[in-house]
Every structure is written in structure tokens, then in C-alpha cells.
């Protein structure tokens, strides 16, 4: 079995106004990983994602994808290497249908978005793949709706559909259930369960119940520093983790 990490962050450092929001973060992900990144509000979780995608430049540190240093590469180039993220606040195209979102992602992945002629509705292979993704996420019925007509829970699913259509090797999910009404999280969770088995997933999440069902490894961030990296059970037992964050453990149904 190949145990080379598909993703590595080494010594990432970033200060905002003199305050460290990423403090020497080192983290590796392997194919098939299911890792949860947790920590209090403002701990620097989203900033960590922005640093590794290249949207924010770190003051020190490195990011490697499949062993290759990608610090000199643009965010888009990193995506093409298989590093895909979703956004904490949905970022979708209000004037596009769900189908167009997924088709655009498929075409982009296949390097066909430069083409000036043709329409995805006349491309059987794009349609087939799009249907499959929409079916997995239970979005088939809203394929031709504009995203602004969907409820927030479904919009979150479209975020995931976009990410899946890019066939990532490493998927960074930034609070996939944030803002989703309680009744709709089951749909999202089953989508998370169906993610490709060899995909490395890092999920930021405040819903501790979900974290414990999903993750086989937990990383805890506090004030930009990794204070724990290990088994979920050990995280729950760690006094330091409890002190900074997992006070929430006691009433886990009410995420911070």
C-alpha cells in the first residue's frame, strides 16, 4: 500500500495584525483519510484552508500535493492537481441552474472550457456524469432550477456536487452543514458517507455528533496552532482539548 501523503502542509505561518492565525501548522493527509478539523470560532480553520489553496499567502511554510511543492502555483493550478475546497458560506452562481454548475465543473476538469462551440446539453458523456452526481446528492429534481430558487440545504449540496464533479484527490469541506436546517442535515451526511473511498477528506465542522460519526482522525486548532492530532476518542479524553473547545462535548447537540 502506498503511504505517501497526498497532501502535506509544513510549518504554515500567518499573522493578521500581529496575531497568529496560523501558527506553525503541520498536517498530512493520506488517500482515504476522513479527518475533522475542529476548534473554536476564530481559531483559524478557514484561514488554514485559504493558506493551502493559495488564496492567502503564508508568511512561512510549504504545501505539497503528492510530494510536489506547489507554493509557486496559483489557486487554479492547485485545483487542477486535485486540491478542491468548498466554502463556509455558499458561493454559487445565482444566474445558473444546478445542471449548469455541475456541467461547468465537469467541462473544466476535462479542460474543455476553452471551447467556443457546442453546448453541454448536447454532450451525452457530460450529461451522463452530471446525472450521476445529481442523483447521488438527491438533486435530480432541481437540475433545471436556478440556485437562488433552492433552499439553503440544497445549495450546500450543490457546493458538494461542484466539488465532486472536479474529481478531487483532496477535498477540504468548510462547515458543510453550516446554516442547514436541522431536518436537512441527514441528506448532507449521507452525501458525506458516499464520498469516494480513496478521496482524502478534511472536514471543518462544529457539529460534534457529525464529527464523531464521520471522522477517523481529529485535528484540533486553537489560536492558529494544532493542539491535538489523533483518534477522536483520545480527543474527547484530552483535558487541553476539553478546555479550549470540547466543553461542547457535554451538550454536543448544540454546536457552537
Amino acid at each position, binding site marked *: 500500500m502506498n503511504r505517501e501523503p497526498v497532501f502535506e502542509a509544513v510549518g504554515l505561518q500567518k499573522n493578521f495584525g500581529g496575531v497568529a492565525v496560523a501558527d506553525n501548522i503541520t498536517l498530512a493527509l493520506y488517500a482515504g483519510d476522513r479527518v475533522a478539523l475542529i476548534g473554536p470560532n476564530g481559531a483559524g480553520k478557514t484561514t488554514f484552508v485559504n493558506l493551502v*489553496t493559495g*488564496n492567502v499567502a503564508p508568511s512561512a511554510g510549504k504545501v505539497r500535493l503528492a510530494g510536489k511543492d506547489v507554493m509557486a502555483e*496559483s*489557486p*487554479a*493550478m492547485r*485545483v*487542477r492537481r486535485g486540491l*478542491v*475546497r468548498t*466554502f463556509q458560506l455558499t*458561493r*454559487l*452562481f*445565482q*444566474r*445558473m441552474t444546478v445542471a*449548469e454548475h455541475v*456541467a*461547468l*465543473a465537469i*467541462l*473544466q*476538469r476535462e479542460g*474543455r*472550457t*476553452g*471551447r*467556443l*462551440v*457546442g*453546448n*453541454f*446539453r*448536447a*454532450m*451525452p458523456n457530460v*450529461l*451522463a456524469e452530471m*446525472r450521476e452526481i445529481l442523483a447521488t446528492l438527491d438533486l435530480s429534481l432541481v437540475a433545471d432550477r*436556478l440556485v437562488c430558487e433552492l433552499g439553503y440545504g440544497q445549495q450546500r449540496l450543490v457546493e458538494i456536487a*461542484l466539488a465532486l464533479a*472536479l474529481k478531487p484527490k483532496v477535498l477540504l469541506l468548510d462547515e458543510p452543514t453550516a446554516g442547514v436546517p436541522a431536518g436537512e442535515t441527514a441528506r448532507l451526511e449521507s452525501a458525506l458517507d458516499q464520498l469516494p473511498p480513496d478521496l482524502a477528506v478534511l472536514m471543518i465542522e462544529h457539529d460534534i455528533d457529525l464529527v464523531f460519526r464521520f471522522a477517523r482522525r481529529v485535528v484540533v486548532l486553537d489560536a492558529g496552532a494544532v493542539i491535538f492530532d489523533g483518534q477522536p476518542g483520545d480527543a474527547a479524553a484530552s483535558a487541553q482539548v476539553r478546555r479550549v473547545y470540547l466543553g461542547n462535548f457535554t451538550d454536543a447537540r448544540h454546536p457552537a
Partner: protein
Amino acid sequence: MTVLENEAETAHKQGAMRLVAAPMLLLTLAIAGYFLFPDNLALLTRIIAISLLVLSIDLVTGICGVATLGQAAMFGAGAYAAGIGAAHFGITDPLAMTVVGAFGGALAGLLSGLVMLRAHGLPQLVLSIAVVHLFHEAANKASRWTGGSDGLTGITPSPLLGLFDFDLWGRTAYIYGVFLLLLTFVALRVIVSSPFGMLCRGIGEDATRIEAMGGDVRGTMLKMFVIAGFVAGTGGALGAISTQVVGLDTLSFALSAEALVMLVLGGAGSLYGALTGTVTFMWLEDVISAANPFHWMTIVGALLIAAVLFAPRGLYGAVEELAARIWGRR
């Protein structure tokens, strides 16, 4: 799989149908124009030329989300390229002049893009103004080639296809203009619904999101600038062919701004909006300035304020909304 293929086939045919329907409507209007305003064909031809400029702004502004006040740089570059080719190099075949103009415009589009895509937002808008001023000044200085402020004369297009003279009433020019507009319109419809067009619409809404999907934002926009330049350049060439002079006003900030106003009036982001805005604006300009040349700008101002307040998506957007309300569709 066969079901999918069938479906794809049907979608393809439907798309083809819709692709034909719009140009048919345009053609009908163009023919009506020919018979209703036989003495005004020069104005109609000018409307078509400016339509191409406004369509070009729509590509950059309405679709890619880059506001510009310098698009006349591409229109004027097309006009001068066609004009200089005819006056100095004997390229007087109208089709050849059009091609020269389109490529001149595309080159100007490339240059504009290279400059403008270095910035975002307000600085980008300022760069667009700088670009059109630089083009204007360059044309003014190179008077040996451009005629400077006197304008470029000596453009005598040979008969269209070797058969049809450019007559005094402007019939040939008008018919040629209608043909160019139809061709451009169909081509743009194809481009806008292509994978590239979808990517551009995505960039227009949220460029960072497109990057997070692996899209090359700058490269894509630059390509759109070149296409927009090609379209505007075609318009410029049509102007040169039909009026047989090219003036510095084709390269002006004022024309850029006026064309942007037409786009907003009609509705940015839609090719129909661009056409609606141009026709409405220029027709009103003609009617009102003939009746009262002093208050023309006042009326434009009032019209614009009304459009922005009551039809924020432009005239075409308002009509679309009204139709949707009547037919009860989205």
C-alpha cells in the same frame, strides 16, 4: 446511454431551432426598416455599426463583469484599420476591409485586455479610460496615416462581391450591415452558450469561485477581450465602408460612454438587451435632437434615470419580466 443520446440529440435540435428563430426576427425587423425608412438607411446602418460596439461591450461588461469606458478603442481601431487599408494600401474590397477591421479591433482588444486585466474594480475602469485616450492621441499624432483631426478620407470601397455598388442611398451598405449583424449575432449566441461562454458567465458572477474550480480567469477574460475586439472592429469597419470617412470620434471616450449607456438602457448581460438599447437610444436621439437639439441630453438623462429606477435590468429585462408575469413562467 441511448436515451441520453436521444435526449442530447433533441436538445441539440431545439437549440438549433432557437438559434434560427432569433435571427429570423432580426431579419424581419431589418426588412421592415428598409421599407419603412428608405430615406434613413444611413442612420439605420450607423445603428447597426454601433450595435456591434454595444454587443462587444456586453461581452466584456454584461457577461464577464468588467465595466469599461474605453471600448471605442476597439471600434475605432477597426474603423481605422479598414480605412487605412483602403486609402493607403488599396484594399478596397468590402469583405477584405471588414476582415482587416475585425482583426484591427481584435488586436486593440488584446492590448486593452493586457492593460485592463492588471487591475480590478475602479482602477480597472480608469485604465479603460486611459486606453481609449491613448488610442485617440495615437491616431491624432499619426496624421500622415489617419488624417488626424481632419479625418481619414479617400476610402472608396469597391462593389460588394464585385456586383453591388455602394450607392448614394446607402442600400448596399445597409444590406451588408444587416448581413454582418446577423452573422455576428448567431456567432455570439453560439459562443455565449458554449463551455467558454458558461465559464465567462461564471467569472462575471464570482471570479474567485471559478478559480476554486480550476478555471483560468485571466486567460479566459483576455480571450473574451479579443473576441469583443473582433466584434467591435467589425462594427468600425462597417462604419468606414458605409460613410467612407473615419474620424477621431470613433476612438473617443464619449462614444465609449454613450455605448455603455445604451447597453445599460437595453439590459446588460443579454445580447437582445444590447440590441434593444442601441436601437432605442439612437432612434430617440435622432427623433428628439431633430425636434429639439438643445434638450436632447436632458431627455437622455431623464430616460436613464427612469430606466435605472424602474427597469434595473434594462428595457429588455423589463419586457422579459412582463412576459413572464403574463405567461406565468419564470
